[in-house]
């Protein structure tokens, strides 16, 4: 049964992977830095590897959804990310897509 558990873990991970971008965009209403984002998501029950999140943030910035700024203040420099206007638009549309998907899936899984 160990093999079954492993398989379920892998497939669940794949399910969750699809929701990552939406979760991240959701949490970036205000400017956040990488690690704080990790912690905030943890609190909401979403586990994410920092080594996955950081490159993801860079990618989203490259795609124009986020913008970053180094904050030199306090004890050490931190890189803060926040959504761009374009990011806001895309986020809204993605949210819409998500409700469609969840409706479809609920209907499907009830049959």
């Amino acid at each position, binding site marked *: 049964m160990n093999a079954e558990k492993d398989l379920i873990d892998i497939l669940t991970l794949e399910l969750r992977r699809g929701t990552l971008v939406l979760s991240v965009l959701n949490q970036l209403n205000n400017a956040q830095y*990488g690690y704080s984002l990790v912690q905030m998501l943890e609190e909401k029950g979403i586990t994410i590897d920092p080594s996955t999140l*950081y*490159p993801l943030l860079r990618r989203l910035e490259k795609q124009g959804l986020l913008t970053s700024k180094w904050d030199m203040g306090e004890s050490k420099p*931190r890189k803060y990310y926040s959504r761009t206007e374009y990011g806001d638009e895309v986020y809204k549309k993605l949210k819409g897509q998500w409700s469609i998907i969840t409706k479809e899936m609920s209907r499907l899984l009830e049959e």
Partner: protein
Amino acid sequence: MDEKSKIDVLIDRYVFDTVRRLPKEQREDIGLEIRDLIDDMMNESMDKDIEKVLIELGEPSEMAKKYRDREQYLIGPEYFDTYILVMKIVWLSIIIGSGISITIQIISNTISNHVAGVTNSVISGGVFPLLSSFGLVTLIFAFLEHQKVKLNTKTKEAWTPAKLPEVPNEKMLIKRSDSIVSIIFTLVFIGLLMFAPQLFGIWITNDGVTRTIPVFNMAVWNIAMPLFVISLAIGLVDDIIRLVIGKYCTVIMAVSIVSGMLQIIIATIILKGLPLWNSNFASEMKAVFGIAMTSLGEVEIIWNNGNLSNLILGIIIFATLLGVGNTVYKTLRFRE
């Protein structure tokens, strides 16, 4: 003081080992990011164990992989199949070619001292070309992969079902193995004809001395041989075309007819136009074997008055027409 620098050393090493795998422009930024992250994770952890933190972050190679934009392939999935195919063809050709060459050298004794000589030939004539061709083909495909990655943004025509090639009717297919075997035999034959015609004959060993009584008349060999080779080469072209196209069609039919006709013509020239056979053959046989004159006397008659040539020519014409006829039949029968 000592403990702190130990941690710093590890962090420095980790960051260095990660960012060195990434493009130059990104190194500083990502480096800072990682240091930041390690710092945060250390603050979070109870036991401030730097090694645990770094293990949690993962191997630098894995970390770098996550930061990369795209996969790094020497030869990516798109080109790999073609690459393997080309490599197979090139290697097969080299193996066959050097195999023939070495075999001929052994037979005609141009390699002295068999074991050492053969090993040397195999390495220089066989292994070396294989290795260097591997490098060259790989280099070419790696270059293609690199260029394609650059061209990725260019749009190409969208695929439509209209572009699908026809499914060939099974009976229409020409067996690749037949073509390949035929090509190999033809190459070997050409090689032998060109470099060791005296092999075609009877071999006699007498007190450790081997000699051959050749079947062919060596005097006209410098006319006969090129004609032989040309005829075989025509057959070779026919086979290669069959291998490439792979199914019966008008082109194959035309090539088959043309090559068949040419081969018959050349065979006629060689067999009827030249004194091809070694006229001393029968008498040399007699001399060596010294057996019953009468039976050999008959052989001599057959040999020297052209019946042999006619016989062989007849066989050749028959076989060629049979082959061409088969091709024509298959092509016409299964045409849509």
